[in-house]
């Protein structure tokens, strides 16, 4: 697969104070280039009854969105307002053009579906014919069986309908741009910085991949490489520079982290020196 690239800055869509991406190319691109994974929150339509794999859309945590905007790689778009405006502004010609594009995609999808079904049927009939032939000679109704087998084979060839009979499928597009035109880049909207943003940006600058750490009771999970291929190394928690830290929290975090083969990491930024320090804890009891 050739490496996918998208033009920067790309839009990040804000809905209900969340930052969301819908375009699969952007999702693949920021994972490869910016080391930002986000969280897939959607459904995979071809495997809809499971929770192990999730699909598009991709939710970016505010820290990730802020980092991308600060780098100048992305900008925030208010998607609700954009839809409201875009849908009323759409001209009749644009609507017709978009519908015809969907129609074409729908026809392609229908043809692909049909080809798959044809292949399956051919395979099935081949199998049925072969079976009949195999047990043929030592049975009385050989003629009947071979007749039915040849009928099956001929039927497999003849029953295939013409491609022109295929009705296009209706398509639910994944993104709204097109038919809407993407709004102009703006720097007006910047996701707010959480208190732990400094730690996030620091770890990210050290080439760690970060994801929300709710399942391990921390703020971020830090992976040494793409989480698709690597286990996480650290359970990261951001603290303020002069914040008092309860020793019990350190013990709890250290034990938990060691128990799941990860390091418990605490870090914060010293504003006077503009420097982020991180410390790692391990349970070392005998």
């Amino acid at each position: 697969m050739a490496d996918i690239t998208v033009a920067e800055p790309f839009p990040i869509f804000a809905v209900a104070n969340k930052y969301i991406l819908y375009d699969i190319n952007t999702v693949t691109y920021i994972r490869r280039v910016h080391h930002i994974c986000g969280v897939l929150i959607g459904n995979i339509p071809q495997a809809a009854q499971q929770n192990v794999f999730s699909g598009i859309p991709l939710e970016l945590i505010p820290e990730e969105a802020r980092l991308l905007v600060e780098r100048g790689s992305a900008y925030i778009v208010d998607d609700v307002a954009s839809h409201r405006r875009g849908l009323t502004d759409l001209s009749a010609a644009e609507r017709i053009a978009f519908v015809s594009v969907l129609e074409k995609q729908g026809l392609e999808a229908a043809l692909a579906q049909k080809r798959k079904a044809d292949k399956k049927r051919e395979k099935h009939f081949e199998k049925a014919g072969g079976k009949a032939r195999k047990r043929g000679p030592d049975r009385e109704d050989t003629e009947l069986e071979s007749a039915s087998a040849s009928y099956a084979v001929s039927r497999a060839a003849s029953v295939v309908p013409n491609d022109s009979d295929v009705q296009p499928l209706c398509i639910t597009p994944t993104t709204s741009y097109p038919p809407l035109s993407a709004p102009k880049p703006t720097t007006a909207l910047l996701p707010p910085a959480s208190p732990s943003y400094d730690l996030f940006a620091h770890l990210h600058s050290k080439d760690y991949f970060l994801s929300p750490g709710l399942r391990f009771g921390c703020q971020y999970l830090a992976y040494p490489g793409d989480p698709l291929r690597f286990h996480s190394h650290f359970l990261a928690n951001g603290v303020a520079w002069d914040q008092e830290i309860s020793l019990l929290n350190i013990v709890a975090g250290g034990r938990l982290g060691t128990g799941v083969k990860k390091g418990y990491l605490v870090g914060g930024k010293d504003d006077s020196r503009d420097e982020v320090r991180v410390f790692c804890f391990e349970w070392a009891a005998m």
Partner: protein
Amino acid sequence: MPPPSSEAGDDDGSPPPSPALSPRGTSSTPSLPAPSADVDLTDEVQDFRFLTSLIDSETAQKLPSRGTKDFEPHGTRAQDAALAASRAAMHAALSLARVHPRGGQRAEWDGKDGAWVDKPGGFWVRSVGRVVRVPIADSDSDSDSEDQPSDTMPTKPKSPRKPKTEARTHLHPEEALWLLERGSLDIHWPPAPGEAPFTGLPMSLQGGYAAFLGEVLSLEVFTVYQYLKRAGYTVLRAGENEGSVPVYKAAAGNPLSVLFARLWTALFAPQPAHDPTTNTSIGPAPTDPTAPRVTYHVYKPLPGFKKTSPGPPDFYVSVINARESCFPSERQLDGLLAQTPYHPPTGVTNLYLRLKKGYRDVVLAVVDQGVAWSMAIWTS
């Protein structure tokens, strides 16, 4: 079985609760295969190459096993190739479009917080959506009256008092968005002037999020809804299903002995700091909008389920945002638990089982940026 004249405060003597009172549906619920506890596949990011094998194989319906991952990158070509393959599989799995047969089910955004369904049917109608009687729009009734004269029977003019209504299926935003994401429903924007109903532009996935998320439905709540639906549960809004919460009926005892029992407890029993048996009623949802509340009533998937009479829920789920809220205060927790049914651990003699069953229970679903996790809370 002891006589029912035992004290009312202590529940050891009263008869075991009817199945309707037990939230876990002791008698009517067939046991579901529990997922193995030691391996939780949702704990870590999965390798999408296993999804491809899951979809491509025709027979395999089982979940893929956990893929092997490396400890750290060491710059070998084999590792890079494996990563590229994983990413390619992920890209391929996520680029598939949602398609619907022509002339299939359609729905239309209602302009504020839900969708109307055209020709409701299919697997989901049994547990999703509700029928609403709405007055027929003017244009429709006009066309109806034009049809009338074509009938051979002369029809008497209808009284203008009684507006004609029709039954239509309406979906809540979370239901509509779930069906849209699942690829089960073709939702359209409202038609432009001059277009027939249900023929507006098709709503994209992105448009669905923009239309359905907002004040009525937050993304946290939707994440939990979708998680439960994908796992196969039936999920109803708690606010609309309050009638299904079973009310506790204490066993009626001899009034004299009840009085004596009360006196006895008042005089001699140790006073706990909090007595869960003092309040057995169901409380209303809190008026404070920031207070945690039971968001959803959750039912195990059972064949005989009817959405018009769902019966007592199996679980009570409250959705909490991990970033914006702290753990509920004692008062909030009491208010939250009061929205769930009172089910004293009667007939359970084992102390640990009694503690585990408790008097009321609620499931807190904590959501941090798309990652959902749950914990159960009991009063014991």
